[in-house]
């Protein structure tokens, strides 16, 4: 029997088509288990995706805050503006400063609030932009200790609260995701095990008649991947909601998030889902399938 290249290719194509057919057959056979697995998978990926999106957006927020936020130093009434200004500029991490004298601030306020006959209660203010956002707290305390500085104000509390909230979310999310991940792996592994048992006769026939091992393994691996893929696709909706909510939340804090995390998180979810799905199947194949 002589085989041409075209023959060989069409044989491979038919085998490939057959493998997908077998995969679909395996899915049909698994019945309601499909639903359980896909829903579990979608739930775990939603949780995981939301967590990841939150962490990414918060990091972006911090970055944004670091450049957007500044330290405001209010001077004592007797302080010499020029001296303090020079001292501030000498601190490491200071990118640039903006001076608002008490007179100009007062003029602005008088105009805005329509008050005229009062002594000026405002101090001279220096707004400081930092080029090292992670050292904002250190810089602020250094400036506070300078002669002539009454008080320093920056978004310290906000950042700290966001940080600890973000850490809490990450920790809780990680525990839940790990637990559900292990559960999903177990459920998928079990389903594929049941399928191997149910198909044991077919598998034995295929083996004995010299059908390649991959023809037997691949449909099972694909079925596992199918669960991961479906779960990730379904989880896209909750993820969309989560990213939108995070955007709203941060929007209230005067920061616009780009929704930048959406696509990258979705891709990671797809990869995670397929990996867990195929991993669960591979586990059962390794344990129960003799080829």
């Amino acid at each position, binding site marked *: 029997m002589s085989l041409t290249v075209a023959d060989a290719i*069409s*044989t*491979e*194509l*038919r*085998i490939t088509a*057959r493998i997908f057919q077998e995969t679909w057959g395996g899915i049909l056979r698994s019945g309601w288990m499909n639903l359980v697995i896909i829903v579990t998978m979608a739930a775990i990926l939603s949780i995981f995706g939301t967590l990841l999106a939150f962490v990414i957006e918060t990091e972006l927020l911090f970055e944004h805050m670091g450049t957007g936020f500044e330290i405001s130093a209010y001077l004592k009434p007797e302080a010499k503006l020029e001296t303090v200004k020079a001292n501030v500029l000498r601190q490491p991490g200071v990118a640039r400063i903006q001076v608002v004298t008490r007179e100009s601030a007062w003029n602005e306020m008088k105009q805005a609030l329509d008050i005229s006959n009062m002594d000026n209660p405002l101090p001279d203010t220096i707004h400081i932009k930092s080029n090292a956002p992670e050292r904002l707290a250190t810089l602020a305390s250094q400036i506070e200790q300078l002669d002539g500085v009454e008080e320093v104000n920056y978004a310290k509390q906000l950042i700290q609260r966001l940080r600890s909230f973000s850490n809490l979310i990450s920790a809780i999310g990680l525990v839940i995701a790990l637990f559900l991940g292990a559960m999903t792996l177990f459920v998928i592994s079990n389903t594929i095990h049941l399928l191997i048992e149910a198909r044991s*006769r*077919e598998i*034995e*026939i*295929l*083996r*004995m*008649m*010299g*059908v*390649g*091992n991959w*023809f037997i393994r691949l449909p099972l691996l694909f079925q596992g991947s199918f669960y991961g893929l479906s779960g990730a696709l379904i989880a896209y909706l909750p993820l969309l909601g989560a990213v939108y909510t995070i955007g709203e939340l941060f929007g209230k804090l005067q920061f616009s998030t780009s929704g930048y995390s959406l696509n990258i998180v979705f891709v990671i979810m797809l990869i995670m889902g397929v990996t867990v799905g195929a991993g669960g199947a591979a586990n059962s194949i390794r344990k129960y399938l003799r080829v």
Partner: protein
Amino acid sequence: MIRFLNVTQKYGTITALRDASFDIDIGEFVFFVGPSGAGKSTIMKLIYREEVVTGGMVLVGRVDVSKLKPHQVPRLRRRMGIVFQDFKLLPGQSAYDNVAYVLRALGVAPTEIRKRVLGALKVVGLIDKVDAKPEELSGGEQQRVGIARAIVNGPSLVIADEPTGNLDPQTSIEIMNLLEQINQRGTTIMVCTHNQQVVNTMRKRVIQLSDGNIVRDVPLGAYNA
């Protein structure tokens, strides 16, 4: 076609086959006889490499079976057809689909599958039952489907492990006649059995095993010496 050279097969402390040597030529029809546990199935499994030989050498064609890597085993098995005692048919699938199943997995073209499956079912005399499911067939008919499946890929060797173990005497003889018919087309046939009547009726080469040893190898022999 098949050559066993001083083959010893051990499973842990149990020796299933001891220093077995024999040759089977192309086109032969050979019975392996002996009580259960004598080593018949071990010989079969060594040939289709379900077991890896622990001592000696097993040659199939010019291939040293023990040297095959796992991924080369399917190619070896595609050159042979295996018939089982319990038929191993897929329930709920027609005779046609049962025979076609493996060809589909091997990526054979649909027109070619149809030609070969119908050809094989014709050889085993089931051309009028292509659509019947195993549940609708008698034991003998089911084994005929099993044989059709074994020969559909045009193997040069057919291995049958107790093919009549689940069949009545009359049907057993019919199945043997079918195997002989296939043998006459040039296919080498190896049959494991402890069915005395079948062996005595057929009068083929007999290799007798006892407790892992080959105790008799005679042409045109009977079940007992």
